[in-house]
């Protein structure tokens, strides 16, 4: 052939492309056939217009248990339960597919060995160009595992819900118990308080010594009992997680000023002094006013209790690393380093010179620490035995500008 190299090349090229195209068409058909036959996860097969099975793939064999030779020519109603067949469900599904083009169902189907599996079934009606029904394509997915998972999830959910309900009931009954128990514990102490109070206040005439002294001691002991019930109730409430802080922007300087004013008389009765060193500008922080005040008062009560006559208490406020810091420093008995780590534990009481004469139930600092933690703050203690202690309370200033 006398064709130029260029033309020759060009012709050959075109020929190759055609050939390639041809093979591609063939392999694509084959590919489809192979694809359908080898799909393991789906049963895919064709049925004639009456529902008799014409083809069978690996997925069908795997999911339904019949081999190719066993099933070809059988009616597809074999996959339905006796009840479904009695209801003519297979026939009804074909009718719907004929009318609407397809039908989808999710229900139990029966395997060759009689066992059930949860199936998602899509039956598609196949029409030729003249709209003559040629048969049906049926794709079945075995969703037993998913169904089981869903059922598990549902029952786990139901269990969780009932447990949640039970927890709420228990929590409610615990709250009810706490409030009733504190009522019952207070009742006899209240009678003692009134009767001794009546005697001490002179309603029954003057009390001679040493009777007055004994009655005063009894009254004080009863007061400790009442304070213990109150502390237990406070701790139970904060431990139950029921405390919702009512936080607002508060000037902690103003809180400290008000506390110091309130304590000046009490402290001077004990021949101690109380003073403050406040940050020059207002120290705003986002706190629950009432709880924050109670926490600081609790620390000052402790400072005063564990400080001898002539001692002093100083309250300092300042801003440190985005935190509002209130420090309460006393010149009291101080703490040994070994006692500090357990200081905030429930019912912890430190042995020192004054612990035998000072009343305390070991709940105050536990409660204070919980309150400050609720504020996302922290308490640190610096102390030297015999010299005094400083309790440093820090709460984040946070969200003030917001």
């Amino acid at each position, binding site marked *: 052939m006398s064709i130029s190299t260029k033309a020759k090349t060009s012709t050959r090229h075109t020929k190759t492309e055609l050939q390639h195209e041809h093979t591609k068409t063939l392999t694509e058909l084959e590919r489809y056939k192979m694809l359908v036959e080898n799909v393991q996860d789906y049963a895919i097969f064709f049925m004639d217009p009456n529902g008799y099975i014409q083809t069978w793939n690996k997925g069908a064999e795997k999911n339904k248990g019949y081999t190719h030779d066993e099933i070809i020519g059988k009616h597809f109603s074999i996959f339905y339960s006796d009840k479904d067949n009695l209801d003519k469900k297979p026939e009804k599904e074909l009718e719907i597919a004929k009318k609407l083009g397809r039908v989808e169902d999710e229900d139990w189907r029966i395997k060759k060995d009689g066992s059930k599996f949860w199936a998602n079934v899509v039956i598609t009606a196949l029409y030729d160009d003249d709209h003559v029904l040629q048969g049906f394509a049926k794709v079945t997915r075995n969703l037993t595992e998913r169904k089981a998972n869903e059922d598990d999830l549902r029952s786990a959910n139901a269990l969780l819900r009932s447990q949640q309900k039970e927890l709420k009931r228990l929590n409610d009954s615990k*709250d*009810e118990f*706490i*409030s*009733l128990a*504190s*009522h019952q514990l*207070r*009742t006899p*102490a*209240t*009678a003692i*308080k*009134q*009767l001794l*109070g*009546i005697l001490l*206040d002179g*309603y029954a005439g003057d009390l001679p010594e040493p009777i007055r002294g004994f009655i005063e001691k009894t009254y004080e002991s009863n007061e400790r009992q*009442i304070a213990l*019930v*109150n502390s237990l*109730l406070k701790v139970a*409430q904060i431990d139950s997680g029921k405390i919702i802080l009512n936080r607002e922007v508060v000037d902690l300087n103003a809180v400290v000023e008000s506390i110091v004013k309130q304590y000046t008389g009490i402290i001077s009765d004990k021949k101690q002094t109380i003073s403050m060193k406040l940050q020059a500008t207002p120290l705003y922080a986002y706190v629950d006013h009432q709880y924050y005040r109670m926490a600081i008062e609790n620390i000052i009560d402790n400072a005063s209790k564990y400080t001898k006559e002539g001692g002093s208490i100083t309250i300092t406020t300042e801003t440190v690393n985005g935190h509002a810091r209130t420090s309460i420093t006393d010149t009291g008995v101080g703490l040994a380093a070994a006692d500090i780590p357990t200081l905030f534990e429930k019912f912890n009481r430190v042995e020192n010179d004054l612990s035998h004469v000072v009343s305390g139930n070991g709940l105050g600092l536990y409660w204070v620490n919980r309150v400050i933690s609720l504020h996302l703050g922290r308490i640190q203690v610096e102390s030297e035995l015999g010299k005094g202690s400083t309790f440093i309370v820090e709460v984040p200033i946070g969200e003030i500008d917001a």
Partner: protein
Amino acid sequence: MRKILIVEDDPILRDSYHLILSSQPYVCHVAENGKVALDMIKKTNYDLVLLDIMMPVMNGVELLENLDNLDEMKSKIVIMSNLSSGKEIERTQELGIQQNVVKSDTSPSQLISLVRLQLISR
């Protein structure tokens, strides 16, 4: 003279409160439960009612719920109970009672101050 009603089932407390408040220039009446108090409130116009919650026959909450003139009376009622939390206390607050005192935290002299303050504020 100002008239005070003490509603308290515990006889020791009832007698104590009566003794303490009778030392002041008040007329003091006592009731041992809510039902007795309800009848007394219908007959007498009290300036102040000190009301316990946990009582037999009719408790303090039930008394409040049965008061025909609760709106008029609610500012004259102080809850005096050893309950400081729980659904009964919440209920009294829902019913509009704002004054709530824990009995175990109230000494005889504090009781006198409390009553005096209540009567002055009218």
